């Protein structure tokens, strides 16, 4: 069993390895955490997720760009692969927030959506990633099947963004208590509102906080 000091050292090490996109080191430290009896949930949330939180800040300050984010995400997922199987059932149940993500029909540009997925994964959400060029009726179908509380839509193209209001209408008419958020280069908060979305994120770093906010708003409404 790791001492409190050793536990802190491992958590800080996991944080740093994610921030510095050292994938092998992340795996080594994740294995060490498991072997030394560090709680897997803590290793994820107080190590890996903390790292991605720092990465999000670096991205917002234009110190990191997409290449760095992708490599940080590779490190995160490598660590999660080691740690997730070690989660206790009670910890796994803590993941009660579920989001469906996808790039709307007609659009194949998925880098933004993938970065958003990383942020939700890091924050402990259960993510159902539908990929890109997702047919418009599939979002409502998958929401009904999975009971996800939030649906996130992404588009890079001005033409494909026009699919968003129709998708939002489908999801909302099925269940008004589902929160829908949108994002992508041509989208603004004003456009999001006009489309009937509950929320909008300008970048991946803001997406999780926005999802938490709109989830509460929609549930309280």
């Amino acid at each position, binding site marked *: 069993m790791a001492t409190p000091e050793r536990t802190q050292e491992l958590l800080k090490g996991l944080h740093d390895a994610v921030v510095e996109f050292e994938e092998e080191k992340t795996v080594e430290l994740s294995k060490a955490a498991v072997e030394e009896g560090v709680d897997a949930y803590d290793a994820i949330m107080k190590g890996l997720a903390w790292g991605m939180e720092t990465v999000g800040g670096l991205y917002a300050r*234009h110190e990191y*760009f997409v290449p760095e984010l*992708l*490599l940080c995400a590779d490190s995160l997922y490598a660590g999660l692969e080691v740690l997730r199987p070690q989660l206790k059932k009670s910890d796994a149940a803590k993941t009660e927030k579920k989001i469906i993500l996808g790039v709307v029909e007609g*659009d194949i540009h998925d880098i933004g959506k993938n970065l958003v997925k990383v942020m939700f994964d890091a924050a402990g959400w259960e993510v159902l990633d539908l990929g890109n060029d997702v047919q418009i009726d599939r979002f409502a179908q998958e929401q009904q099947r999975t009971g996800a509380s939030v649906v996130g839509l992404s588009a890079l193209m*001005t*033409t*494909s963004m026009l699919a968003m209001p129709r998708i939002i209408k489908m999801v909302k008419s099925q269940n008004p208590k589902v929160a829908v958020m949108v994002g992508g280069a*041509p989208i603004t908060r004003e456009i999001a509102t006009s489309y009937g979305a509950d929320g909008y994120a300008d970048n991946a770093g803001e997406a999780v906080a926005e999802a938490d906010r709109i989830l509460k708003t929609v549930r309280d409404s």
Partner: protein
Amino acid sequence: MTSQDSVIHQDRVEALLKGEKVDQVPLFHFIIGFCARNVGYSVADMYRDPEKSFMAQLWTFEQYGVDGGPDYGYASYGGWEFGGEIKFPSSEWQQAPSHVGFPVNSEEDLARLKTPDVRTAGSLPLAMEFSRLQDKFNKPISVVLGGNFSIAGNICPVGTLCRWMLKRPEAAHRLLRIATDHLVEVVQYWADSFGAERVIPNLWEPVAANNIISPRQFEQFALPYIKEANERMLAMGIKHILYHICGEQNMNLPHWAKIPMGDPGLVTFGHEVDLNTAINYFGDSCLILGNVEPSIIQNGTHQQVYDLCRQCIDKAKHAPRGFMLMSGCEIPPMSPPYNVYMMKKAIDDFGHYS
């Protein structure tokens, strides 16, 4: 509009390229999908049938008083040409051809990659057929390609290129070398076919935007290749290069300003770049084109579009080498026609030179 009017429209662009005065700000469009809707064709027709594409643009340009174009090309250029697969637009939500599979997904694929035969690769036979129509109708000869970095980002997934830049820079450089040589070979083919002085390469660079890479990464992986390619094009006798500096590229502008574009060059900007900033960097050497926000043209009111056009004209009308009003990227196919007309109306109302 009469055929005489058509000559006047083309003359405005030619006059600016010669450094002569014009009577009003010219209107320059990249508007392929909208033209399909305008004349009753499918968007896919515009990419797989050069004659339909050319005529649809010609007719629409006449209707909307456009001075530049027509052009053939799309942002995903490079994947098909190097052996990947694309699909043509088939639904109302699709704007242009898009990737189905990339020719390079690994370093092993990259090791086997060779520059393709420019006479037969991917969309190039269609583009050449289109340029023969430009020649037949005495229009400017353009060849629309991605910039070097965007071609590389279409040969392999952008995410792969991003990872290679940091972890396997030699692989990224090899890919960029191949993309650069290919780009120059294509332009040489056009120069050999029509005469270098008549060809204006029309190069689009969305992947190098700061939404994706840092200015430092631009300096290391985009700048040297773009600069080299432009120097080689100008050395073969090309007079003017049009570069669409697409998306959020404010942090890259000091690097772009080091790249020769011809005399004058033509630089077009996304709405993210203020036209005063663009003039500061490029005004002495290039025509400035831009930059009405496409999503406003599609989703905004006609008054919003009109106001944005006026702002662009007011800022850039007196750019030292000239200015052409254009959208910040391709005009979306589903844009309301009256919004598109606002660009001409704004020029009629505010774009005249006394």
